């Protein structure tokens, strides 16, 4: 693929991403105090975060047949998630929770324990 093709590809992706971030500020600049906006501002972030967890556990497979995801199915993912939850409830240290869970997952996947 040529440099020009790659640059156009990156530019389109960058513009589309920025659009999703800037549209509310342009389109709703006068509505900041509307009760519905405040309601969504309060409840939507935790809802989205939980949906992202479900999405990540189900679907975070950018290359379905790629090497990065070998064995990335089923139990290792669920068990590693439990490691994250338990570590975080216990120590409440984001670093410990993320490194612990990721380490557990990598160990399970790389040692070929994919049920």
């Amino acid at each position, binding site marked *: 693929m040529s440099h020009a093709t790659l640059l156009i590809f990156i530019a*389109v992706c960058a513009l589309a991403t920025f659009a999703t971030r*800037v549209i509310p*500020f342009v389109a709703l600049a006068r509505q900041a105090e509307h*009760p519905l906006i405040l*309601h969504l501002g309060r*409840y939507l972030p935790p809802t989205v*975060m939980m*949906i992202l967890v479900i999405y990540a556990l189900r679907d975070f497979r950018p290359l379905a047949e790629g090497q990065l995801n070998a064995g990335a199915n089923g139990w290792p993912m669920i068990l590693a998630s439990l490691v994250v939850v338990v570590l975080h409830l216990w120590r409440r240290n984001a670093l410990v929770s993320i490194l612990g869970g990721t380490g557990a997952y990598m160990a399970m996947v*790389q040692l070929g324990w994919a049920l």
Partner: protein
Amino acid sequence: MIGFMDIPHRRGDTQGVYLLSSSNAWREAGTLTLPVMFGYLPLGAAFGILAVEVGIPVWAALLMSLLIYAGAGQFLAVALLAAGAGLVELAVATLMLNSRHLFYGLSLLKRFQGAGWRKPYLIFSLTDETYSLLTTLPPERARDHALALRIGLLNQGWWVLGSLVGALIGTTLAFDSRGIEFALTALFIVLTLEQARRLRQGLPFAIALATGLGALLLLPDRHLLLGAIGAASLVLLAHYRLHRHAPRESQP
């Protein structure tokens, strides 16, 4: 860089208490972004490795982290590039995957008012994690736009650094990185637990479970995220109407 960011832009500052020296201010922001650093470094590295693996040059991987700056969005872009997808497909997929950012902006409309020259970057750098950090700040710091800018810059710094390291590892060493992408999942789990601790209400999580699992069963993978978030927004809209007992004219 540090001095130039800080000193001349303190007008209208009602928080004279926070006339920290520049290095202290950066150290404070650095401490706040520490958990994000430990998510972004491995995840950025996973992105860099993946990008190089499918044949994207190191400079282009770096450019993506500088100009696009969206975790899941960049993974998707790599997958689409590898699959030879067209530009329209890329634009639509990116818009749909990142449409959740629309809702983040909604709750920051008021907070970003008066951010001046910092505002474009604050909007550009609004990732899941930066949003979560900014909305977790104590109320008296909520309008500290200089702090928000430092948080945004540092977070993107971790992401770019991770991408660079990953791309270089991908080109030079044979590093067994299988499974490293789980860092993203772990980060989302941690952020969800933190949101639950802050809100102390079951409603959003019940809605997320219902719409998320419903979307899993009913929708193909590529529509899952937008479908679930769209459905959850509709449920929250209905909840808002019932809650107010005043179904007024149908305006957004």
